[in-house]
């Protein structure tokens, strides 16, 4: 029976959410005054991002409500249920943060949050985001092209792939040992995919810094691929000459390929990919090739996308 004894009550059970959120906002305002990223961010709070320009990357579809984007997440380090990350990701400390960029590059560099924010002007891009589980959302991301960061570190002639790694700190991610996948989470792209102007490094959404459950402070967004390619909370980026291992491919190679481009004609072995449920809609809609980004098709000319799923 699920009758909770008083001993199991947590503070969050007795403090109404709007009150503790207000407290966090109050703390966040304090640290914003002290210099946006200088102080540790209170868990779960987001801050407004300034100097963001609207970009031409947008879609003619309804943007998914913020509440849906932040309460329905796959972030297995914080639990495997979609609602888990919004409850448990408050243990993530997105600041201070460091990202090591190295490997086959001329100018390896370790970035802190301040220097990340200065890589390129921030822009808002409204992208479709399609999960391999056949649901989708439309997100107003804030970020800059991944290519801008890669150009700074200058990949050398041998570099063919980009490998990414998510933070794995069992102290901040105590549920990680139940994820059922190998951690730290790793992902990868071919270098030409990574240099494509659509590939985005996001630092925010809905005008504010990223909520923890959405991959704070810093994540990848590759809108033409299934969501699990868009790795969250990145701590390491490495240029390599060999195709890097990727987490879901390690977990089940038959079901999750390296490319994982959104493709309505290639089904997941266990379910169809021809349709998806847009959060907020009851009935399913048709899934679009490359998630409706046909401009990436030239990256895959001559490739059998059934084999390279």
């Amino acid at each position: 029976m699920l009758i909770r004894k008083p001993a199991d009550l947590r503070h969050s059970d007795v403090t109404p959410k709007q009150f503790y959120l207000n407290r966090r906002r109050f703390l966040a305002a304090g640290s914003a005054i002290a210099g946006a990223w200088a102080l540790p961010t209170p868990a779960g709070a987001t801050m407004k991002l300034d100097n963001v320009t609207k970009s031409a990357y947008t879609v003619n579809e309804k943007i998914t409500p913020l509440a849906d984007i932040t309460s329905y997440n796959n972030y297995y380090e914080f639990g495997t249920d979609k609602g888990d990350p919004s409850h448990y990701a408050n243990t993530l400390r997105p600041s201070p943060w460091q990202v090591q960029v190295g490997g086959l590059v001329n100018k390896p560099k370790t970035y802190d949050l301040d220097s990340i924010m200065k890589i390129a002007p921030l822009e808002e891009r409204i992208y479709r985001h399609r999960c391999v589980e056949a649901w989708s959302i439309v997100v107003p991301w804030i970020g800059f092209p991944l290519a801008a960061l890669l150009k700074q570190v200058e990949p050398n002639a041998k570099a063919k792939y980009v490998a990414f790694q998510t933070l794995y700190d069992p102290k901040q991610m105590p549920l990680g040992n139940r994820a059922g996948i190998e951690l730290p989470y790793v992902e990868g792209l071919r270098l030409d995919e990574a240099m494509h102007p659509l590939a985005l490094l996001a630092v925010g959404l809905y005008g504010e810094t990223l909520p923890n459950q959405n991959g704070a402070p810093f994540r990848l967004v590759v809108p033409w691929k299934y969501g699990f390619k868009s790795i969250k909370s990145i701590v390491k980026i490495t240029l390599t000459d060999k195709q890097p291992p990727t987490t879901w491919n390690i977990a089940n190679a038959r079901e999750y390929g390296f490319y994982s481009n959104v493709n309505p004609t290639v089904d997941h072995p266990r379910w169809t990919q021809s349709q998806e449920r847009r959060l907020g809609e009851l009935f399913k809609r048709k899934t679009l090739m490359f998630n409706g980004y046909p401009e990436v098709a030239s990256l895959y000319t001559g490739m059998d996308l059934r084999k390279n799923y």
Partner: protein
Amino acid sequence: MKKILFSPWTKRALFTLCLIPAFLLIWRGFSGDLSANPVEFIEHRTGDWALRFLLITLSVTPLRKIFEQPLLTRFRRMLGLFAFFYVCVHLLMYLTFDQMFSISGILADVLKRPYITVGSAGFLMLIPLAITSTAAMVRRLGPKRWQLLHRLVYFCALAGVIHYYWLVKSDVREPLMYGGMLTLLMLFRVRMWLAKGAKSKPQPTVVGA
């Protein structure tokens, strides 16, 4: 104890109790608390409860034997029918919102997706059990044939566990937990049957007489 088990109020109370998961879903619906993906939320919850009710139904016989309370059988049919009720809601959600009643879509799913194949097999096997759950049907079939038919429920529960196991991406703890419970319930029966077999073998004439 006997009095409590015999009382019609116990049955009514249990009936109300079994409806709580359904009422909770309705309540959540009205308060906008069905997550960002209400269809999936209802599908998962009703699927969970269908499987739980199957396992609860399968616990009646072991509990009856362990506590020597034959009257517990009075509640078994209702519990089984609740499993059927939740599985119907589960299926109806899928047919309506996932498939929009597209025959070709449903057929493709049943033929191509093993978890749906197994799930639909489990549902189809439950139908004759629900139909023959009335006292009149027990009489018409005769207790022996009725019991034989209703052994199908073991396969329904197994289908439910496999359906769930094949659906999850990586975190198989919950389906394994249900699988573990089903194994325990089946082991109890195997022991029961073996004991019965051992008892009846030395005196076959008595049984026949």
